[in-house]
């Protein structure tokens, strides 16, 4: 099989756009449709597209497995940590109003952090699952 230049060039152009769009979905989620879960999935889809065309090994150089696993765990940790922080600041668990002087700002920070946690976890989980499945597939070849 000769090399597929068209495919690789196209993917090189479109992957950054997908990643950028994931960030847009993440941070625009307060105003329009979208949020952490969708953004995480889209980000992971970008990495997966890269892996599909450039191969698993190169994708794992760009986005190492341990990073994906670390993300999967640390997102949940961030989410729970926001809850703990609001406990320590005198509120109830996951009550973001105490995170800042103004309850509105507190809610903003809280939602931002929580959505970030969701995105990090979902992205890490999706990429981890893809890596595992793709690696298994290679064994059966």
């Amino acid at each position: 099989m000769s090399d597929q230049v068209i495919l690789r060039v196209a993917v090189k152009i479109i992957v950054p756009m997908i990643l950028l769009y994931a960030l847009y979905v993440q941070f625009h989620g307060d105003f329009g449709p979208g949020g952490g879960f969708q953004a995480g999935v889209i980000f992971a889809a970008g990495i997966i597209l890269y892996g599909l065309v450039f191969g698993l090994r190169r994708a794992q150089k760009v986005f190492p497995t341990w990073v994906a696993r670390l993300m999967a765990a640390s997102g949940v940790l961030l989410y729970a940590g926001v809850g703990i922080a609001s406990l320590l600041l005198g509120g109830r668990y996951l009550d973001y109003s105490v995170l800042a002087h103004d309850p509105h700002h507190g809610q903003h920070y809280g939602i931002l952090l929580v959505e970030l946690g969701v995105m990090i976890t979902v992205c890490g989980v999706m990429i981890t699952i893809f890596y595992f499945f793709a690696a298994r597939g290679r064994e059966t070849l």
Partner: protein
Amino acid sequence: MFIVATIAVVVAMTFAMVRALLGPTVYDRVLAVNMFGTKTVLLIAVLGFLTGRPDFLDLALLYALINFIGTLAVLKFFEYGDLGRRVDSEGEA
């Protein structure tokens, strides 16, 4: 006028689906699914104008970006039988 466009898109979707159901080879089905994705992008865009809320365009944008991935995954699978390989010979083969 959006109504005409909507109906046309829905009819095109139906045709694409007939091809997906009939499709003698798997590649016909891939083609049908790819076309179905494009038609969904159009449907969402037109629906946004039809109902007077063009905010739905984010969704159309997402489909336009993501539709590509499924198609590529399927094709790669058929050409190489697995998803983890690089798409040329110099990679790992």
